[in-house]
């Protein structure tokens, strides 16, 4: 099964990458953008999706500073 794990910095954790992007936007003429947060997306093919929670908590994200969200992708939609 195809799945997607979204990893993002926890609320309140400083995100220097997001800040840098936010500061770059006005230079390109895009105003009114704030609260930019940058995380990462992992897509994978997995036989047993029940393992995703453990995989995400142990490796894909560091639960101390990151939240993660698991999405199972509907094969029919691909």
């Amino acid at each position, binding site marked *: 099964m195809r799945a997607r794990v979204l990893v993002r910095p926890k609320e309140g954790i400083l995100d220097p990458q997001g800040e840098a992007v936010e500061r770059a936007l006005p230079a390109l003429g895009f105003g009114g953008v704030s609260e930019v947060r940058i995380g990462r997306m992992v897509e994978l093919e997995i036989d047993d999706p029940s393992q995703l929670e453990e995989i995400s908590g142990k490796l894909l994200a560091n639960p*101390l500073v990151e939240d993660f969200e698991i999405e199972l992708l509907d094969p029919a939609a691909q």
Partner: protein
Amino acid sequence: MKFGVLRFPGSCDEVDAQLAASKVGEAVLLWHGDRDLQDVDAVIVPGGFSYGDYLRAGAIARFSPVMESVVRFASGGGLVLGICNGFQVLCEAGLLPGALLPNANRRFTFRQVSLEVVERGTSFTSQCEEGERLSIPAKHGSGRYYADEATLDALEANGQVVLRYDPAENFNGSLRDIAGVRNEAGNVFGLMPHPEHAVDALTGSTDGLRIFESMRAAVEGAYA
């Protein structure tokens, strides 16, 4: 006294760490794919970019075969020093509390820093003088020490905050200016600055030697 310095793909300070350790004892390199720690008395997890820092700094190195042995070694009371990327690896492995996040200044920064020795009664700082400040270089992109408030309070209460940056030099934004922490048992210590780069007067400072000398004193005391 025999030090073992780990070498991962992407390590870059292991030879300097070996050189520094060899000033106070014997020092061998330990390959990341080996489980045999070769009867070393202390392990050094060096700086660099193990496994390319893929995913997060230290996240992959933590699962290497040698780290299984290091975790066992540490739980048996063995001395483990993590420097820079090594500190990140030890945090990812759960041997040290907290995490190292991207620098608040958004830059990879290289500068000499002045460190306050907060705790002198440790296996890693016993050879520091009272009130001594260590002048040691720091060079990293992700060195912002983070732990939640309750953990930080506990670390301070237990004497686990070993080194602090001068507040004016805390370029990475580490919480409470923390530069180095040890575990509760006191046998595992990590710091972002590089003591192994401050062991020769030719390069400006020999303050880094205090760390290696302290480890030797701890080991020799333990076996004396």
